[in-house]
């Protein structure tokens, strides 16, 4: 549904997106993770047709966004980072305008309106002017306009920002329900959201795609660089030497924490390394704790971003 092939974006001499390639299929929800300024919004804007790629090819529902932008637009529902709302219009007038602009047939405008209002729980505010709405409702009105016209592709730029926990839950349900029949690409800062909703995660930093895989796939990939952390009271140099002599330990980082040393060992991905570390350390110095860090999505994200 969404395909990016070696896409780059330049503003003047500055390249903000470098050689980005990935695709999102129908029935798939892909989370787009990256720190601020990493290129998430620019990428979504290129897919939505707001800006064009400087190089490479973006296609949506089979249409090339460089040449068939207008045709492709009717297959895209897009919620930008700041919900694009006309403050002085009421919710009904706004959604009706978007429905008509999306080419929804006159006879279907009412039913389409009812559908998105129900999906985004906007019944209570349908007649209210948009400037009177809370941030959460504004976000939902923005989401509702994206859903109008039953687009095949949904692009959501930080759709859950500013929502309270109850609204967050609802918004996730909405996105999840649309993920069954649409191709959904949404950017977020909230890592737990990605594990809850997405089939795949794309991690981007400095305009480069660092990884794209399922949350569990990313976890497995990073298990190869597993870490063991331990707390020991010992002389730094001797401890470091001892640990590096253990078979399977790749590197050691030591940080003093009062009497205790906080040690992080990068180990090879095989069983028994932790036990070997314990056998090497425990007889000589007091070992306060020893544990293997399972990579959480947060660790994975931070590691990719710091490496990238």
């Amino acid at each position, binding site marked *: 549904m969404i395909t990016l092939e070696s896409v780059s974006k330049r503003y003047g001499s500055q390249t903000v997106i470098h050689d980005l390639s990935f695709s999102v299929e129908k029935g798939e929800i892909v989370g787009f993770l990256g720190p601020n300024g990493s290129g998430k919004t620019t990428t979504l*804007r290129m897919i*939505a*047709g*707001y*800006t*064009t790629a400087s190089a490479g090819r973006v296609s949506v529902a089979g249409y090339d966004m460089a040449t068939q*932008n*207008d*045709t492709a*637009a*009717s297959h*895209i529902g*897009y919620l*930008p980072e*700041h919900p*694009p*709302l*006309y*403050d*002085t*219009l009421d919710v009904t*007038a706004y959604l009706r*305008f*978007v429905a*008509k*602009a*999306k*080419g929804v047939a006159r006879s279907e405008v009412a039913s389409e309106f009812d559908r998105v209002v129900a999906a985004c729980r906007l019944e209570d505010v349908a007649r209210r002017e948009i400037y009177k709405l809370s941030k959460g409702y504004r976000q939902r009105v923005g989401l509702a*306009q994206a859903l109008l016209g039953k687009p095949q592709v949904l692009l959501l730029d930080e759709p859950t920002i500013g929502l309270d926990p109850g609204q967050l839950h609802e918004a996730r349900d909405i996105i999840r329900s649309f993920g069954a029949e649409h191709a959904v690409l949404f950017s977020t800062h909230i890592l737990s959201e990605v594990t809850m909703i997405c089939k795949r995660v794309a991690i981007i930093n400095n305009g480069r795609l660092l990884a794209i895989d399922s949350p569990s796939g990313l976890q497995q990939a990073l298990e190869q660089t597993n870490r063991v952390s331990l707390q020991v009271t010992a002389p730094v140099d001797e401890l470091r030497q001892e640990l590096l002599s253990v078979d399977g330990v790749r590197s050691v980082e030591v940080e003093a924490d009062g009497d205790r040393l906080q040690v992080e060992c990068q180990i090879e991905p095989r069983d028994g390394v932790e036990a070997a570390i314990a056998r090497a350390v425990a007889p000589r110095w007091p070992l306060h704790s020893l544990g293997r860090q399972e990579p959480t999505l947060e660790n994975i994200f931070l590691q990719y971003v710091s490496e990238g």
Partner: protein
Amino acid sequence: MKGALAVYQKELRLYFRSPIAYFVMAIFLVGTGYFFTYSIFLTGNARMTETFQNMAILLLLVLPVVSMRLFTSEYNGRTMELLATLPLRPWQIVLGKFAGAVTILLLMTAGTLIDVVPLYLFGNPEGMTILSGYIGFILLGMTCLAIGQLFSALTQNQIVAALITVAVLLAFWFIANAQRFQTSYAWRNVLGYLSFSRHFEEFVQGLVRTESVIFYLVVCAIVLVLNTSYLRWQR
């Protein structure tokens, strides 16, 4: 066309949900009423000629206020991203917005018809001359709105858009005055031809010349095409 209609309806709603349209209409109608009363008592003739000339100057100052928000408000409200990604072609956006602004112009013009009533009640005015004046007035207004809309797309600031538009409109209004500094016959002709006031003067005198009608329509079309091209280029 459906897309342009959706944009048009949205523009009209936005105009009437903000105080700008009401203020502009009120100022224009009060101003026109004043000029009308003044001219009638001064000349004692049942005609609209002087009133039309003053209305035109007022129009040049008032219409930029109508056109200034057309695109700047989309930029400032971050709704341009919506318009540009909806299945709307740039010409539909430009035409829809232009039609919305022209509707305000037509409403303003309709409001001035009240001045014609006493002319018919107490005198015997030339109906065709008044009609021709109104045709010129609307054509001039449409051209002003198209120019204002283009400058509204070119800047993010409403005040800047309005001021540039006023400056450009006044320049085209008085451009014929520059003729006296030209010795070249060709240049004098060009300056005279570009003058908004020269063409408008003909309508006011009751002369609907195809050349003048085409002049306003062509300027309008060129500016709207530039506006469309600018939107396309923005992508």
